């Protein structure tokens, strides 16, 4: 983070990410209802909820991809448009044409383009950075392969590497684990944990409760409204989950045990 570029308005620094009274509607149907959420400090933050709960809409709203019916969202106390270079985004995999003729390295290099701006081309610094980022996600050996020839997990890791190359302060990932093999999932989580350790905020839309309990520091449980937010163990309680997933979840007990087990070890 670069505090000099973003002087705090009043005393304490503004929160990294803040949702204020956010309501989003598709047509007349609200998908998000009065969301108030503040993430003050760097952490590995999970956005959890059942299918259709509005998880992806939440981050899309933050990135200005869907219009708000009401409320406001700020990064570093400022609107997203003013700080977009400091936010790295990993979209859902379906949004991309995998036949597109680019290699893994090309995709990662794209992360440096916004910084380069018009009329400048990536130089050796950018190339080195791209190589490093690919290596961090364990893909150094497929750097020259066309993007469509990678497995789902590898494609997701390439996207992650692209966000890394952006050298952002906040990373937003939309369902990065969908259609991803166990090895890739593990690796992605490790990279995210490293980012958190380096003082970045990482916001992940996620659907798997078990790995959520294992990896996230803090989570927001979303089901149209914000059901609960806070440290993972406090939020993923049987009661909260029961309320959110009401009858949709058979693994509740198992999950309860997982959370309890984690609570003991930490």
């Amino acid at each position: 983070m670069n505090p000099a570029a973003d002087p705090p308005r009043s005393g304490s620094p503004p929160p990294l990410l803040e949702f204020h009274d956010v309501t989003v509607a598709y047509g007349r149907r609200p998908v998000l209802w009065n969301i108030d959420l503040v993430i003050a400090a760097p952490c590995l933050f999970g956005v959890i909820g059942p299918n259709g709960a509005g998880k992806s809409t939440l981050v899309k709203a933050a990135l200005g991809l869907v219009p708000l019916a009401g409320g406001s969202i700020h990064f570093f106390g400022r609107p997203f448009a003013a700080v977009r270079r400091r936010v790295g985004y990993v979209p859902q995999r379906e949004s991309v044409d995998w036949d597109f003729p680019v290699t893994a390295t090309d995709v990662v290099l794209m992360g440096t383009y916004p910084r380069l701006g018009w009329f400048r081309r990536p130089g050796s610094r950018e190339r080195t950075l791209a190589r490093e980022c690919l290596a961090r996600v364990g893909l150094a050996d497929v750097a020259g392969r066309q993007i469509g020839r990678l497995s789902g997990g590898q494609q997701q890791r390439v996207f992650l590497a692209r966000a890394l190359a952006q050298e952002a302060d906040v990373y937003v990932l939309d369902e990065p684990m969908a259609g991803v093999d166990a090895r890739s999932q593990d690796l992605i989580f490790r990279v995210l944990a490293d980012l958190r350790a380096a003082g970045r905020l990482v916001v992940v839309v996620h659907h798997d409760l078990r790995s959520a309990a294992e990896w996230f520091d803090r989570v927001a449980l979303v089901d149209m409204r914000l059901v609960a937010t806070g440290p993972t163990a406090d939020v993923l309680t049987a009661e909260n989950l029961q309320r959110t997933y009401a009858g949709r979840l058979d693994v509740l007990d198992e999950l309860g045990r997982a959370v309890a087990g984690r609570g003991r070890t930490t």
Partner: protein
Amino acid sequence: MTLAAGVSYNTLVVVAGVAAVGFAAGVVGSFGVLRRRALAGDAAAHATLAGVALAFLATGRRDLPVLLGGALVAAIAALGALVLVRRVARTRDDAATAIVLGVSFGLGIALVSGITARGIPGGAGLEQFLLGHAAALTAADALLLAGASAVAVLVVVAGLKEATLVSFDPAFAAATGWPVTLVDYALVTLVAVMVVVGLPAAGAVLVTALVVIPPVAARQWTDRVPTMLPLAGGFGLASAVVGVALSAAAPRLATGPLVVLVAAAIFTASFFFAPRRGWLARRREQRAVEGVWTRGRVLAAAAAPAGEGFLRHEIAARVAGVDAAARRRFDGAWLALVREGALVPARPAATGPADPAGAGGRWRLSTEARGRAADWSRRMRAWDEIVRTRPADARTSLTIDLPDPGTIFRDDATRPPH
């Protein structure tokens, strides 16, 4: 033959022929549009030139049936190539269409030029076949058009279920044992027949237009295939009748293009005014969503302070914060409330003439607006409770303008706490 007063024989023939093409093209074209192959018909139309030239070379004659036969074979071959390219190469649909179009038309030009340059008798002007002469339809043309159109429509109606399935989800159709390729080819052949039959009557561009514009317009009005087909057909038919009538009314207005322009006008109306997908409807919806919501919140915020009234920027800060978009929504809502008379200057004498957007003076809620604000806050609290405790109910019944939950659930448990 009895003629309606004032309508000439030629007008009737042209109306009949073009209307038949318009209706059938709309119906057949619907699947092309749904399958994202709207311009396949265009490719087929351009490919016919090569077919015409080859038919002439093979037979040495230029009778219409011979040339039509060649054109039909070429159109089917071109569309077959389109389907084939999709299967054997990883070229995208749009590129495949453009390739088939460009190359087959180029081949046609090369053949026609070669024929002309060699001075083969009767070979000149073969490409006139591609030009439309809608005004010059004869009764035989109209019969052919009507017959082919009827067959095409019947085939589509008979295979409606299969065509819908294959267009919507080819993977599922294939997995459940439907012959996707066969259905695909059948649809494509129908388009080819429509194009070839329509060509001499209408010309390449008009045929393309009739295959594309009415279905796209119809799509704006409905989300169901069984409704879309007759609607598209109806639009095509209406364009034909109105276009022909216009062309008959004034001299020197080419018939075919007028039909296209009428279809385009229908499309434009659909684009803007269709009830749900229309541009106006969407925009109004978006505005309404923002407006209803923000007005409610402004009212609720304004109801809170008592006594001296409130300053505009106080409410703005509470409702919208510093976000520019939120400020814009707030401005709209504020203005609307002032217009409605819900917000009134607290001390008119002190603030001078009413200044709706003015930031200076203090404001207060009218008595009626106080009631509204209280009602809105009550409903808001009620829905909050429902969203929290019974999310499934909220999901089915909650809309952005906050209907009174009491009228929906008739269930005392959801009555808001007072």
